[in-house]
């Protein structure tokens, strides 16, 4: 009898556990996880933190709005900004976590994972790299950041016509990004009335620019366009000023990082970024800026907005799929993106070109040591 009662009790407990497990599964049935492949260790780890702050805020907003009917979470994997680690992380996200959407950063990692993205029909979204070769990584690889060639096209008319800067010197990293910027400047400057008087390439790892500075001084340009990234661009700016170069710098989104904005030698530099009016009353932008300032006690940057937008765009696409009763898969997300003409993101309404790269209005910013100001906005 005792044995029977014990067995009965065990049975009841097992049933209760099974029921509670089933209930908990049901209550989280609509939970969605997306992936993020950012450098979380190594020399580029600070970028992972910057990008992640935007992505996390977007997930918080999506969850607060109950956009998906369940909880959205982001599974992070450390790419160390290296292709091999990126592929390992991507494989885990796609095959173990089964995520339909992965945030990517850094050109090497993005290129390395693009094959897996295409093969597994998983959407990978870049919000950091701007090399034009990123537009050619297949239909499952999207860029939510305008690529460098768009940025050059936006700044040339402003510098030549409004600032009367005719003679340009380009200092560029000799990689696909730098080469694309050089090609764009060579092609677009003469018709606009400007001239590329000198183009000086630097290795990606170089940190000494005294020799280059001497050549820039000899060329005596009206403006120096810097096509570099990471800590190198701060060194270029500092060492050029130390070498007595007074001309202003021009650049692309890479200048939007806090280190450059806080650098006294960079004051007066102009750079392009996607058009985001941080004081805009547009509800999406205002909420992003206000909440970011509240949470981190500082102004967001374009990179942060990009990864916020990448996650927000996933939320909008997934919401539409859920409404239609379709599963949130990479394939359906792609179809839905093609179907959806515009998205309400930070900065306003944006659309995508056929190659999966965002097209949006650009703006020209000036570094003034006080958080920056917008000089001009241009059409997309």
């Amino acid at each position, binding site marked *: 009898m005792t044995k029977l009662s014990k067995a009965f009790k065990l049975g009841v407990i097992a049933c209760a556990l099974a029921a509670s497990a089933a209930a908990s599964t049901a209550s989280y049935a609509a939970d969605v996880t997306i992936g993020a492949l950012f*450098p*979380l*260790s*190594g020399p580029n*780890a600070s970028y*992972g*933190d910057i990008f*992640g702050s935007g992505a996390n805020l977007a997930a918080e907003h999506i969850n607060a709005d109950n956009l998906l009917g369940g909880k959205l979470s982001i*599974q*992070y*994997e*450390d790419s*160390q*900004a*290296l*292709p*091999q*680690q990126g*592929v*390992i992380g991507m*494989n*885990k996200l*796609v*095959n*173990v976590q089964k995520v339909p959407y992965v945030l990517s950063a850094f*050109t*090497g990692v993005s*290129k*390395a994972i*693009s*094959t897996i993205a295409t093969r597994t029909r998983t959407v990978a979204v870049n919000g950091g790299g701007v*090399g034009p*070769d990123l537009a050619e990584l297949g239909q499952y690889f999207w860029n939510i950041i305008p690529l460098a060639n768009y940025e050059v096209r936006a700044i040339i008319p402003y510098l030549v016509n409004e600032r009367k800067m005719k003679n340009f010197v380009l200092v560029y*990293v*000799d*990689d*696909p990004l730098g080469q694309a910027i050089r090609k764009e400047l060579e092609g677009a400057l003469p018709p606009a009335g400007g001239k590329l008087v000198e183009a000086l390439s630097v*290795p*990606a790892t170089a940190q000494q620019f005294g020799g280059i500075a001497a050549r820039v001084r000899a060329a005596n340009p009206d403006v120096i366009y810097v096509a570099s990234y990471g800590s190198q661009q701060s060194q270029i700016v500092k060492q050029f000023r130390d070498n007595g170069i007074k001309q202003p710098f021009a650049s692309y989104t890479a200048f939007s990082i806090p280190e450059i904005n806080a650098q006294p030698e960079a004051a007066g530099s102009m750079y392009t970024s996607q058009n985001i009016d941080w004081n805009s009353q547009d509800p999406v932008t205002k909420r992003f800026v206000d909440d970011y300032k509240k949470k981190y006690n500082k102004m967001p940057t374009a990179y942060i907005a990009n990864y916020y937008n990448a996650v927000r765009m996933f939320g909008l696409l997934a919401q539409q799929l859920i409404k239609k009763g379709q599963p949130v898969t990479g394939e359906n997300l792609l179809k839905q993106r093609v179907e959806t003409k515009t998205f309400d993101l930070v900065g306003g309404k944006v659309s995508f070109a056929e190659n999966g790269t965002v097209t949006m209005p650009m703006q020209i910013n000036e570094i003034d040591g006080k958080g920056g100001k917008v000089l001009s906005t241009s059409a997309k």
Partner: protein
Amino acid sequence: MLAYLLNLATLMCINAVLAITLNFIMGYAGIFSIAHAIFFGVGAYSAAWVAMNASANIFLVIPVAMVVAGALSLVLALPALRVRGEYFVAASLGLQVLGVTVFSEWKSVTGGLGGMIGIPPAEIFGHAVADPAQFLLLALCCLVPVLLATGVLLRSSFGRNLKAIRDSETAAYAFGKNVALIKTMSVVISAMLAAVAGALYAFYMGFINVESFMLDTSVLLMAMVIIGGTGTLLGPIVGTVLLMLLPGVFSYMSFLPQTEIGSIQQIAYGLAMVLLMIFRPGGIVGSGKPRAAKEKAA
């Protein structure tokens, strides 16, 4: 899950080939090279170039990669004949820097910093090895012969000569050994076998750029050998498996903050290396006592 495990296992095989070949010169010949990633890179770029411009047949690609890496390894063998110990480490560091610069700047062949994308899958008798399980089999088919070849070589008189040079170059010379030839051959063999890993890597990733062949990779390979056990046949494999599994294991520890896992992992690596060197300097598979202590005891 299976695909993830296959992916990890494939990369483990590739890295194990590299660790075994580095151990061949480091653990047995006493040549401490921190330029091993360069031969890995030479193999990868040669394989990618041949696959994209001629044929992706592995019976053509792998031999070409091996020959190119073997020929270039003479550049490393030259300083190895002239200097030893820390002087050779400095010389190999120079070669590593030089190699990375060539990979970055020789755009017409390596694609520069942008790298080479669109490398076709490896072909065996016209069959494209694109399936992950098939590729793992291919990687194993390369790992096992490399392991066997090094094992056989080390058990031969050539292996004994290597150990003699490692323990005392002067004594080996006094016994009439052709030190220069033995050292050169060991470097060439190591580089040629490392190129096999390079070719596999290029085929598997479908994309290569210089970031995979930097100093960090050479240091990681050295860590794999040291942790596993220098001068042992299985040590490099154990070191490779451990160092490649750890990141995955850490990422499954749900109680750790996701964005801090990378930093925690680096701290764990550092601590493990320090503790291992204090308590088990011969590595996991190797002897618990340092070689000097053993020699003294003998």
